[in-house]
Structures are given as C-alpha cells and as structure tokens.
C-alpha cells in the first residue's frame, strides 16, 4: 500500500489531515478482506450451536450430517478435546484474583449459553456445510438457567461452573478514603440505580479465519480478521500443542472490530484444528446472526453520592454488578474492572468506594468492546453529577467546573489510583459551552417549554485512560517497530501494532516521514504478520499511535542518524550541520543537498569507501515504552497501568416528544483533548464513530433474549443502530494539552465518546422532561422506555 499525501514540500506530515492510505483501495472495492483470501482446495466450515442456554449434552448424532453431500468432516466436542486443549485466556481471571474456567473450541459435557459451539462441519462448499450442519442432532438434558446477574447472585441460583462456589468470576473493592464519614457530613446525599443494557459492537465485517495446515513440514498458516496476531499465535500454540515458531498468523484487512476481534474466540482454535484434521485449508466466516451474540456491556450500578451545598462532591459509593455472560477466553470479562477503577473520573472526589461483582450467567459471553468498561463508569459518574446539580438546584455545568481536577494539579492521583497525566477540563467546558451558545440555548429552552415543547441539554465529561499495560499479560504498554530503507530510498515500516480500520498505519507513516525526512509516498507500512513484523501486541486500548508511533519514531531516528553520517561526508560538512527533509539531505550552511536515495546507496554499496566504519544496515528495530506506568503498589495498594488520559466534554441537545417518547437529537458538540494530534482527520473519524456508538447505546441499541436465553435481536431490524437520519451534524472542537509522558505529547484516541455520549443524552432527556420530574435510570432510552419514565414520574 502506498500512502499518498496532500501535504506540500516542507510541511510537516505530523498534524496534517493526511487521507487514509488505504482509502482508494476501500473506495474502489480493492480492499482485501478475509473472505477475499482463497487457497487451492479450501474447504468451508460451519459451526453447530447450542439451542439451549444451559444443558447437559447427552448425545451428538452426526451420522446424517456425515453422509450429507460434500461433507469432509463432522467434529464433536469430545473428539475436538482429544486434539486440542483449553484455550488460554487473554486475561486469566485467576491471575487477577478471580476464578478460572476452561473454555474449549467445542463444548464438552455441557453447554452454558444458547449459541455455544457444540459441533463443526467441514464440506466442499459453505452451502453443503450449512445443509449438513442442520442435520446434526444434539440430545440435551435441560438444566435450569439464569440470565440476570442479580438473580445469578442468589444463593440458590443455577450454577454455570460446578467447581465454583457461586457465579462470581471476580469480586473486588476499589478506592480510598472514608466514604461513610464523608457521606454522613454531606449536605446532599443521592442514592439511585442505573441499568446499562447489553449492546454489541456490530462491525461491518464479522469475524472470519482461514487456516492452512501443512502436513509435510508441520506448519500452520492462519489468515484472520483480527487485532492481535502475536497473541493469537501464542494462544493457538498453547491450545493446539504446537511450537509458536511453527505458526504464522496474517491479519487480513479488518472491516471494523471495536475490540470484538481481539483473540480468545473458540472458532480460532477450531478452524485451525479442522484444517489439521482434514489436511486442507479451512475457512470459516461468521454470519451476522452469530456476530450479534457478542455482548459489549451490561451492568447495574447502585450508587450513593454526597455533596456540599457549594457543589463540592465529597464521596461516591458504587456497587456494580456486571453480567459477563458465560466465560470465554476473550478479554470481555475484565471490562467491568475499568468501570470501577475509572470512578470518580476527572473530579477531585477524595472518598471513593466501588464494589464490583462480575457475574457469569447463561447469556453469551461479553467480548472486549470499545470503551472497555470505562464507558460505563462515565455514564454513571455523569448521571451522578447531574443528580447532584438537580438536588442543589445548581447549573450542571457549574457543578462540573467546581469539581474538575484543576489544570495546575497534574499529574493527579485519583482515589482509585489512576495517575492522570495532564489536562485542562475547565478549558474543555468553556469550549463546549461557547460552541453551544449555552446561555442563549437555555433561554430558548425556557421559551419552548412555555410553548409545551421539551428541549433538553445534557453535558458529560469523559476521561479515557488509554494504552494500558497489564503485568504478566499480553496487554502490553509498549510496542515495537522496524524501519527499513532500501538502496533506492524506499522505506518499509514493520510494526507490531495493527489497524482495525481506523487508519493508524497512515499516522505511523506520517511520523516516519517527518522523522526520516522523506515524503510520505516513499513509505509503506506493513502490519499484522507474525513472520514479517517484530513481536508486538496489535491493537487495543488506544495504544497504536502512542506506542506504535513512538517506536516508529525511534527506529526512524536511528536510520536517519546513519544517513546523516554518510550524507555529511558526501557533502563534506560536519554531521551536525546536515538535516534531512523532503527526501534530501541538506547542508544547513550553504544549502547544498544530496538526494536521500544516493545516500542510502552509498551506505549500502560503498561500505568500504565513503561509508567506511559505518555499520551498513539501513534498518532499525526499536521498542517504545511511554512514561507514567507504575505497577509497584503505592502505600494504599494502588497501581497505575495507563500512560495517558484523553478527555472530552460532550454536550447533547435533544427534543423529546412526550406523547410518543421519541427523542430527536438536535445538536451534539464534543470538545476533545487527546494531546498533540498526529492526524486530525483520523482523530475526528474515531471520535465520530465512538460518539455514534454511544448515541446508539443511549437511544436504541439493545440485545434482547427470550425467556430461554435465545437471542431475539439478531438482525439490523431488531438491533437498532443509528442511521445518518438519526444524527445531527456532530461538532468537534479540539484542545491540545500535551502529555508529558509520550513521544509527541499525544494521547490515545479512539475510545472517547462511547460513555460520554450515552451520559450526555441521558442527562439531556432528563433535562427535557424536567417538567414531569423524571429520573433516568436506564439506557437505551427507547420511546417505550421514555414513556414509562413519564408514567412513573406521574404516578409518584
């Protein structure tokens, strides 16, 4: 892929809105996605899934399926278990003080959710495989099931994992301070409950894998729509009992992921095993209904917040019950941790206590999802702040201003231990209010209200810890990049980070362009291939520009240093009197210059002449570790796993129709600060996507199940994502507060929006319906839910 640039000569690439390198390929239908890969003799797999939420498997009868036309193999859980072990967890719960459960590629013994893989069929075509899959007969002995997390906490609840004493995968406490004393001394104490419904990420491209086992040399090549090729290689080596070095994982272009395609899914091991057992390449493409099974979030918060008359918040207590569904090896179960530790967000609340129960139920597993639990923390925190403002009769903007961490107190350690690098939150608030024309809008609201119309304004602050590091896990806070220059000056960047479609490859190319002093068009970025790229960790937690970009910068500087030595000799000036820009190495004194390709050729072909005593490699591999990560517990046991904390202030304006409950989004503003911006177009694209994801969760998206635990919202006509017609023009404002702990002062960007948008809309709906006195206690605020709110307020 070639990066094209709109940038002019002499203009720094960093900071300019360079278009995505793969834009032309995508727009002209030439993007190569997983389903576009085909190997000779490829066979097709279909997964047979449990129809029941909880049942013992009595018998799997595959005879009819095996005799069906074109069928090569029908694999049951028992047979799979003879060839593949449990799938290692992306984040092992037991290592975090939680409980372990074995997860296999096909269920053995019993099923714990409707949709769990119980058998697999391989056939010559997808159609033959689907026809045969319908013939697999599974006999079950039904077990009682539980879908609700509170119900699963009951003593006599059905238990998913018999070796566990209950259904709790993790129970923990977070926070410091004396919450009880602070609440006792508070002027205002508000307690309430908030329910966040289960949603999903629904990327445009579902998951898919193509595995090819080579029987002659005992190697496995896996193509996949995935985010973390190196972690997957380790995982497959473990579950399949192979050497890591015998496995190559290649990431196809990814059509969106939002965390869904982080590894740990049963089908990853399964498809590889099917290839091994059939001796043929095997492809599996997830269908849309399967994709809808992946949960993104589902929590209940029972909170108490205390504030003084002047608006100062003194304490927050939150009891969180998170429904993680059945256990999977994916990272989803760990998300609610962040819901707890991100409290009390960017506010100076000295006393915080969060108690967390992460509960397993017979719903399908949660999968990692953009926001990674932080979204729920902000939703709840911002609801709490609004309730304080309401209780005090204060302006919600001013209550936020009163409690923000002041710009001069960074780095700031929060009650739960996060060490926030930098920020100017009042600055964000000012920006958002100015763009909104807040005072005029409040007047307009009063006018409309007098005329019987219900306009509402909602604010929400959002803090996004990014670029996480988990000691001893593959959630890594650093990454690695190789920069290699050819004899003719062409540059290939091999990086350990991957792009799920957000375009960080373009951002990395911009960094290399500036650091190396060559045009963007000379640079090719290679990602997602365990054989070509250095060992890295792929994409998660807004890390790719921080650590992918940082390591690319270091490697590019090493290469440039070598060019400078030889180029200076060619120009006959001291090495500190040259600079490289626009593909030429220039003497700073008299401006004479030599093209970079000539210098590169000199390094590589005149190693015993002008480049004598210079090690003739135009290649460097470097790792970048940002600052501010600290795993040594402080005196109160708190650790600090994030280098950067992006932040933003959302403002939503809605109009609610109290006769139908329909909420119309009238305006949306986000003032955003992710430090120094490498590429504003990429940042804005991410922000738009995250905001819309939050708006969907706020107003319309919800996974629904019937009483038997079967998914009933498995199409886009039953799982309602927002469309363009539902959205106002989203207005973005940038503020730049550089991080002192990263290479360029940049912070992670990509997750901010999901939680803040939910909260801003919820606050706006409550504000719109203030004449009725409603209190928002759940999302999505679908029209029926809004009417129910009004009814409830009327009957109170």
């Amino acid at each position, binding site marked *: 892929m070639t990066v094209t640039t709109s940038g002019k000569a002499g203009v720094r690439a960093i900071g300019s809105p360079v278009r995505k390198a793969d834009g032309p390929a995508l727009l002209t239908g030439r993007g190569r996605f997983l389903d576009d890969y085909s190997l000779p003799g490829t066979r097709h797999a279909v997964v047979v899934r449990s129809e029941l939420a909880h049942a013992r498997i009595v018998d799997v009868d595959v005879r009819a399926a095996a005799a069906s036309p074109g069928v090569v193999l029908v694999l049951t859980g028992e047979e799979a278990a003879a060839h593949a072990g449990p799938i290692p967890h992306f984040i092992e719960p037991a290592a975090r003080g939680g409980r372990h459960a074995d997860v296999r590629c096909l269920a053995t013994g019993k099923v714990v959710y409707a949709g769990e893989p119980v058998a697999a069929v391989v056939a010559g075509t997808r*159609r033959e495989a689907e*026809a045969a899959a319908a013939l697999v007969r599974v006999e079950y002995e039904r077990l009682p099931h539980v879908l609700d997390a509170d119900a699963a906490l009951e003593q006599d609840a059905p238990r998913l994992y018999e070796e566990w004493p209950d259904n709790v995968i993790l129970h923990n406490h977070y926070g410091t301070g004396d919450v009880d004393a602070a609440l006792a001394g508070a002027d205002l104490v508000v307690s309430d409950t908030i329910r966040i419904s289960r949603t999903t990420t629904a990327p445009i491209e579902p998951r898919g894998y193509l595995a090819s086992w080579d029987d002659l040399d005992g190697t496995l090549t896996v193509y996949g729509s995935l985010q973390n090729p190196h972690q997957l290689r380790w995982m497959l080596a473990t579950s399949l009992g192979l050497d890591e070095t015998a496995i190559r994982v290649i990431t196809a272009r990814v059509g969106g992921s939002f965390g869904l395609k982080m590894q740990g899914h049963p089908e990853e091991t399964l498809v590889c095993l099917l290839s091994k057992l059939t001796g043929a390449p095997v492809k599996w493409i997830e269908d849309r209904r399967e994709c809808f099974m992946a949960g993104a979030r589902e929590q209940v918060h029972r909170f108490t917040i205390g504030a003084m008359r002047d608006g100062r918040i003194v304490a927050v207590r939150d009891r969180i019950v998170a429904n993680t569904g059945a256990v999977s090896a994916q990272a989803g179960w760990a998300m609610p941790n962040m819901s707890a530790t991100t409290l009390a967000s960017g506010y100076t609340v000295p006393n915080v206590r969060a108690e967390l129960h992460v509960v397993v139920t017979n719903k399908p597993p949660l999968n990692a999802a953009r926001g990674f639990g932080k979204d729920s923390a902000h939703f709840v925190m911002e609801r709490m702040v609004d309730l304080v403002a309401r209780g005090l009769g204060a302006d919600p903007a001013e209550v936020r201003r009163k409690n923000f961490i002041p710009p001069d107190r960074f780095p700031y350690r929060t009650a739960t231990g996060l060490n926030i690098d930098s920020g100017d939150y009042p600055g964000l608030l000012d920006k958002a209010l100015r763009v909104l024309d807040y005072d005029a809008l409040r007047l307009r609201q009063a006018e409309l209200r007098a005329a019987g119309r219900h306009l509402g304004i909602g604010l929400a602050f959002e803090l996004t810890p990014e670029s996480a590091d988990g000691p001893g896990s593959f959630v890594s806070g650093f990454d690695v990049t190789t920069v290699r220059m050819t004899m003719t000056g062409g540059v290939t960047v091999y990086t350990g980070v991957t792009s799920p479609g957000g375009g960080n490859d373009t951002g990395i190319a911009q960094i290399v362009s500036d650091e190396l002093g060559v045009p963007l068009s000379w640079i090719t970025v290679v990602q997602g291939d365990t054989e070509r790229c250095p060992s890295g960790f792929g994409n998660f937690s807004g890390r790719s520009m921080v650590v992918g970009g940082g390591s690319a910068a270091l490697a590019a500087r090493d290469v440039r240093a070598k060019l400078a030595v030889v180029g200076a000799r060619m120009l006959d000036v001291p090495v500190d009197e040259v600079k490289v820009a626009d593909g030429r190495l220039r003497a700073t004194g008299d401006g004479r210059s030599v093209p970079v390709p000539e210098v590169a050729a000199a390094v590589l072909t005149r190693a015993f002449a002008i480049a004598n005593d210079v090690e003739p490699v135009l290649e460097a591999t470097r790792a970048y570790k940002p600052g501010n990560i600290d795993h040594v517990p402080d005196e109160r046991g708190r650790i600090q796993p994030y280098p950067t904390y992006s932040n933003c202030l959302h403002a939503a304006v809605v109009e609610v129709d109290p006769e*139908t409950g*329909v909420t119309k989004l009238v305006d949306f503003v986000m003032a955003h600060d992710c430090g120094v911006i490498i590429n504003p177009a990429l940042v804005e694209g991410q922000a738009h996507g995250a905001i819309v994801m939050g708006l969907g969760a706020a107003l319309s998206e919800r996974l629904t199940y019937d009483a038997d635990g079967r998914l009933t919202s498995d199409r*886009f*006509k*039953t799982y*309602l994502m927002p469309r363009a017609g539902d959205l106002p023009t989203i207005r973005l404002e940038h503020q730049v507060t550089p991080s002192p702990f990263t290479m360029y002062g940049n912070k992670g960007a990509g997750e901010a929006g999901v939680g803040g948008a939910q909260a801003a809309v919820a606050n706006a709906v409550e504000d719109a319906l203030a004449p009725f006195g409603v209190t928002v206690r759940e999302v999505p605020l679908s*029209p*029926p839910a809004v009417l129910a709110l009004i009814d409830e307020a009327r009957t109170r």
Partner: protein
Amino acid sequence: MITKNFAYHAPADLHGVVTALSAASGTAVVLGGGTMLVPDMTHGKTVADVVVDLSRAGLSGITLDGGGGPHDGPVADDGVSDGRVADGRVADGRVADGRVADGGVVVVGATTTYAHVLSDPRSRTLAPLLRRVAGGVTGGPQIRNKGTIGGSACYANPSSEVPAALVALGARLRLASAGGTREVAAGDFFTGAFATARRPGEVLAAIALPAPTGPCPGYTKLKLNESSWPIATAACVPGPDGALRVALGAVAATPLLVTLDPPEAGVADPAWRAHVREVVDAALAEPWSDVLADGDYRRRVAPVVAVRAVADALQQAEGES
C-alpha cells in the same frame, strides 16, 4: 445461505405464472422483489421446492381503468370469475388535467415497486397515499428498487405499511389462479399476522383502488429510529360525509379501521382527543407486540398517530382548497 435446491420459473405473463403454480409439485412460492422472501429462504424460515418469479410477468404499473379493458372481465365478488385469467396490465388510464373522474378504478400491478411509485408522475393523482408510503420506506434504494406493493401485501407483516394503506383506501386485491380470478376486499384479505386470504396456487396480480376524488389522505408513521420497523401508522381518508376513515397499521396483527368524528374544535381539543382515544382503544382488542415494542406501548401511541393523521389530512385538505 439457501441450502436446498429448488426449481425456478420466471414466466413471461400472468398465464404462465398461474400455470407454473398449478403445475408445481411440492411447496411453491411466489417471488416478488424478494426483500423478505430471499432472507427468509436464506435463514431457512421458508423452504421451497419451486420458486415462481414475477419479475418478467409484466405485472408492474399504475393505470386508471375506466372500464372495458381486457382485464376487466366479469369478476365475481370474492369468488371465481369465468375462468379467464386477468392481465394485470391495463390500458393507460385517462388522467384529464390531473383530475380523476369519479368512479374509476386505479389498478396497481402487484410487482409495482416503491421506486416505480415514486418515479411515476401518475401516482401523484392516482395513488397519493401509496406515494407517501413509498417515500418513507426505509432500507434505502435497495429496498425501494426491489420491494413491491404486492409483496408487502402478501407478506402481511403487521409492521409493514402497505396493508393498512390498502385498508384505508378500500382497495380490492385481485387474486389469480389456474381456476380463474377473484377479488377480495383489503379488509378481508388480511386475516392475521403474516396471514392472508390468498390460497395456495393463487398469485396477487393487481390491486384495485377506487380512484381518488378528494384531497390527499393524511398519513403518519411512528418508528423508534430510522432503522426501526414502523411501530404505528395511521392513514386518514376523509369521507364525503365528513366522517374520517382512519386505518391504523402495525398496532395489531391486522390493520385496524376506525371511523372518527371530525374535530369540530380543532385537533387540539381535549374532548375530541378523548373521543379518538376511546374509539381506538375499543377497536384495539389485542395490540401487536414484538421485540421492538410491546402491546402496551402500541396501545399508548395508536390514538396519537390517529390524531396526527387526522391533523395531516385536514392540513392537506386546506392546502387544496
């Protein structure tokens, strides 16, 4: 993916269609635009041995039938005609300077797509309500280009808009089979959720609408958001006597027809609104309930959309006069 092989026919006329249906062995299905049928077959909800595709049968178009066309043989009311198969196409209707003569019949071919309704200027005068429905169909150009009026009628999805629009208009559905043609009033055609009076072997050839005489009917559609199925629709056709004929869609398994008093004191009048609530509530024995909205919600919003459709109709009438 459709896993079972099936025979496929695309007859060149209606005669070919009914012949193919009567000759079919096993389960035969009629394919209109396929916007519902193809996904249903893909998901294994519908399994067919024979698919009869209407796309080449010439059943598309909107015409005004003044009488005497070849299609217009003796048609028994809800019975079988003399055995002659009607041709869904009719000679071009007479639309004199935009006005339609009283008593004429507008014939909408079964495979007329939403896009056709929108692009055919005659729909402005001949089928203004269908035009409004077509303009609001979600799913984008794909659905509007492929989805047919007849397909929506035959699918009889409680959440779709065409059924209630046909009931509001007092449409008659022309069903053809090898045995002949019969007409069924829209009010009798929709017998339940996803169920109609259409018999196996019958194809819907055309829909006959009384030619509009008054102003454009009022119409309201309530959805949860842009991607939602309609949750409640109301079409209001003012009668010559001033009474308001309102057909509610998506609120019950089948379209609900109510007659409302005109709002003498305006649509905001609480007494009139109470009347609407009362009438609608009494008619709505069993509200429709699905994943998107339960029956209670539909019961709540049914009178609201009725009021809004009436307000819209009155506004249209005002605009005309």
